[in-house]
């Protein structure tokens, strides 16, 4: 497996500027209808994904990362519903597609590496059949010999031996299953791959291998990726830009180095500070989770109840996401 060279900040800045936008999300809203009101799981979120970049999506549990990913794939499960916004993939608004048109876009243009890939493979179907299913759904029936060759090549791309071809999911280790999912995701050369916590539930060494597989695949195929996760260490290794979500809103987007060295949003600052370090024991700054009910967000800034710098305006006006410096977006009143 090749390990890609790490980028320098300058390298990133110059290359990302002129890139094409693959995915453009505008004012996306996803609400879950509950008997006691709508849960605003994703509330007015906008961001872009550029050609062949990896963007990381982080934020605490329940902040709406998976919901955002599912909305892009148009797979939000009831009682959830996309209640507003646009999802432009290569210029097509996915939010308006239905039926066959939607099925055509799926996997052809965007693929998913699901959260908990452990249970994402059909337990009674061999790996080759599951990959073949995706290929044949879009390209029609294939000659057996070419199909087999193609699948074995895909498996090799993610570093899996060809014997995996005829195996059932339960015969694979967690890391192998995850890589089989990656192989399946790139089968049709999509322009966008969404990986939801691709390394959670794996041990640290396997996490690294899977992370490197993702990087390798991105380098070779030039696909764009959204990688969701909690693990800031993995993010540092993997992504070009980092998007930070809090309680259904986007609070900061910036190149990953910038986020680590100069986080601007108070939530991001707390997040970075609480990354555990072996060299130095720190008290946890973030002690509790969400302090408000997602059904009933307070007026003004979403982070006001936990923010150490809260002022009067934060309780009245919701700060919009603004490009404060070049390529560094923050939603905070502190910088006005």
């Amino acid at each position, binding site marked *: 497996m090749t390990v890609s060279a790490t980028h320098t900040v300058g390298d990133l800045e110059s290359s990302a500027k002129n890139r094409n936008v693959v995915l453009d999300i505008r004012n996306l809203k996803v609400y879950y209808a509950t008997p006691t009101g709508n849960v605003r799981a994703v509330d007015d979120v906008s961001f872009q994904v550029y050609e062949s970049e990896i963007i990381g999506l982080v934020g605490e549990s329940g902040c709406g990362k998976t919901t955002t990913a599912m909305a892009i794939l148009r797979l939000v499960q009831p009682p959830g519903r996309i209640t507003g916004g646009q999802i432009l993939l290569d210029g097509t608004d996915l939010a308006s597609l239905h039926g066959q048109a939607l099925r055509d876009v799926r996997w052809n243009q965007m693929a998913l590496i699901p959260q908990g890939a452990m249970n994402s493979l*059909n337990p009674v179907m061999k790996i080759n059949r599951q990959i073949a299913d995706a290929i044949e759904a879009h390209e029609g029936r294939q000659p057996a010999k070419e199909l087999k060759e193609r699948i074995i090549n895909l498996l090799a791309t993610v570093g899996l031996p060809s014997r995996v071809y005829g195996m059932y999911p339960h015969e694979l280790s967690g890391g192998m299953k995850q890589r089989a999912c990656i192989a399946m995701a790139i089968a049709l050369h999509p322009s966008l791959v969404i990986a939801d916590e691709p390394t959670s539930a794996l041990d640290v060494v396997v996490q690294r291998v899977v992370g490197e597989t993702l990087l390798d695949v991105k380098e070779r195929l030039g696909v764009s990726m959204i990688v969701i996760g909690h693990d800031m260490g993995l993010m540092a290794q993997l992504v070009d830009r980092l998007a930070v979500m809090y309680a259904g809103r986007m609070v900061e987007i910036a190149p990953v180095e910038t986020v680590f060295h100069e986080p601007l949003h108070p939530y991001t600052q707390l997040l970075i500070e609480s990354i555990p370090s072996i060299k130095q024991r720190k008290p946890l700054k973030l002690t509790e989770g969400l302090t408000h009910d997602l059904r009933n967000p307070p007026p003004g800034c979403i982070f006001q109840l936990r923010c150490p710098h809260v002022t009067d305006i934060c309780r009245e006006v919701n700060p919009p996401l603004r490009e404060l410096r070049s390529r560094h977006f923050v939603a905070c009143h502190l910088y006005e």
Partner: protein
Amino acid sequence: MGGLTPKYVLRRVGMWLLTIWLGATIIFVIPRLAPGDPVAAMVSRLTAQSGYVENSAQMIEAWRARFGLDGPWYVQYYNYLRSVLTLDLGFSLASFPSRVDEMIAQALPWTLGLLTIAVIISFFVGNLVGALMAWRRTPGWIRAFLPATLTFTSIPFFMLGILLIYLFAFGLRWFPPSGAYGRGLEIGFNWPFIKSVIYYGTLPAISIVVTSMGFWALGMRGMMITNDGEDYMILAEAKGLAPQRVFWSYGVRNSILPQVTALALSLGGIAGGSTLVEYIFAYPGMGYLLYLGIVNTDYTLIQGIVFILIAGTSTAVLLLDLLYPLIDPRITYSKG
């Protein structure tokens, strides 16, 4: 994947023989636990019932000789096991000198024919109804009419039977009210006879199918709903597969697994017949025979039927054990 190893087959067949041996032993022991001489007790009970039994001395003699009741228990037991092994189930107490094995041999084909077909139809229709009830994409008009097919489940078996006889046999005169085939027909593999068997079997079969379908449908519905939340179902949709493909290969294929176990058990139980249905339709199968045995306190006949039932069920379990790994790859031949 371990194949069907000789060791596995040997162990399963061993278990099968053990079950049948245990069943036969219990049938041997129970009458002997009753105080006094079992044969004399049975004959005196018969005498009490009918006042006088012809040839009773000869009958006691015959039974004594038959079981060697004068000999020590292990000789009796040895002789008993030997005759059971050769399917020699002795004389009927109530209709001496008929032999139990001959009576069962006459009844068994009727029951097997009627119930196998009815249970299999019920299994397929019931599971399909259940799966469609649970599937989100089931067209509205089908969805509206599905629950109606299950209302008959709450009607007791015999009530429905009587209702069917009243409506279709006495009212509309479409089907005969009782029996298994028309009078004066030559029993054998000829078209008039087969036609008559189907004609006579329709009402009993319908009453079994209609009343047992709900069992399969409700089980399947529950499994499909549980299965729908699985990650591989979401991934299947994300792959852009056709809805039918998701339904059959990912939904039904996984949900049917526990149903197959239940099917094997109910097919095994078929050997005992369906007493109520066969009684109501005067159908000359095992259930009707069991009814006659109970009414006439024909212990040898009841014992014979119970033995066949034990043999049938354990054979079904044996076949299930040998075939199940083929439909669920997670169950391997090497384990268990």
